[in-house]
């Protein structure tokens, strides 16, 4: 094979705009940055709560800053994208059999959304109580 001059087509810089699924792939890769931000933000909250009322008040003031609100809204959108696409692949990964029958993929998907709802409700109850 060594005498053959192979042509290697270059990968274009905008390949990810060619298909919606490629774009979603890039957005999901990007979403990891925002997930990291939410983790950092949560740690900041925990730290502020642990450091007393003054620090907590400062944290709330910081959070009310319009720039931070915008950042958090964008981050929330990315985290939701991440979650929805993650749930979307769960039925592919989980093949559950009951005897000879396979649990249908949409049941597995519904169970994931159900669990999400329950956890969110518990968190909301703890926060708003």
């Amino acid at each position, binding site marked *: 094979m060594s005498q053959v001059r*192979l042509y290697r087509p270059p990968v274009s810089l905008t390949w*990810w705009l060619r298909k919606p699924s490629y774009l979603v792939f890039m957005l999901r890769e990007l979403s990891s940055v925002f997930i990291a931000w939410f983790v950092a933000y949560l740690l900041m909250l925990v730290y502020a709560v642990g450091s007393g009322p003054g620090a907590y008040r400062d944290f709330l003031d910081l959070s009310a800053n319009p720039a931070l609100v915008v950042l958090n809204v964008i981050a929330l959108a990315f985290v939701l994208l991440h979650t929805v696409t993650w749930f979307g692949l769960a039925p*592919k990964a989980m093949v559950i059999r009951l005897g000879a029958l396979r649990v249908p993929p949409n049941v597995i998907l519904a169970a994931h959304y159900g669990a999400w709802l329950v956890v969110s409700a518990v968190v909301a109850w703890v926060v708003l109580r």
Partner: protein
Amino acid sequence: MPESITMEVWRYRPERESEPTWDSYEVPLRKEWAVLDGLNHIKDQLDGTLSYRWSCRMGICGSCGMTVNGEPKLGCSTFLTDYAPGPVRVEPLHNFPVIRDLVVEMGDFMAKLPTVKPWLVGDDEPDEDTEYRQTPVEMDDYKRYSMCINCMLCYAACPVYALDPEFIGPAAIALAQRYNLDSRDAGAEDRRDVLASAEGVWACTFVGECSVACPKDVDPAGAIQRYKLTAANKAVRDLLLPRGAR
């Protein structure tokens, strides 16, 4: 229906040109003609220098993978009338080096495939008159993955493979699962090092285009996600359980 359709074919002849070019041909548009029939017409009647691969012309051999209007397709199962009034643009499969015209170099896949041991691995050789019994339910577990024809459409559709050529790729993983999930096989542990590596299932970020492209409904994306769960389970067990209980 018009009488003919224009086929724009990607040409690369290494002895003539260092950059690929396009050639246009008018071919008859018939309802039973696939893209491959159009190429055969070009080769027989218009331009004998055109190179491409084909054999069975019935979606079984997997040799006629090509890019038709930007999508990876089997040339023999893609009908010209679906692209009327044209033109139809035919390119080699994406993500592979090109040898000539529509002929790509698949050596990379050929090197990766044996690393996942795509054959039945036995604990010990059965004696000659042993029958391996298998129920229909057991066969259902892997049958879908056994339909792969190595056409490489899934590799052409995969952006992860384009960006990271070390990725062992959709079909190789689906074929590994074809044996992992076979009740007669005992090789899952042997395949684990390759499958559960960074170049194995963990390189996949679930774009899902491999399963869209697959002409045999193998669902390689599903095979990969399923193995991710298996690999994660195994890793946790290795960490937590004593050797005997794994």
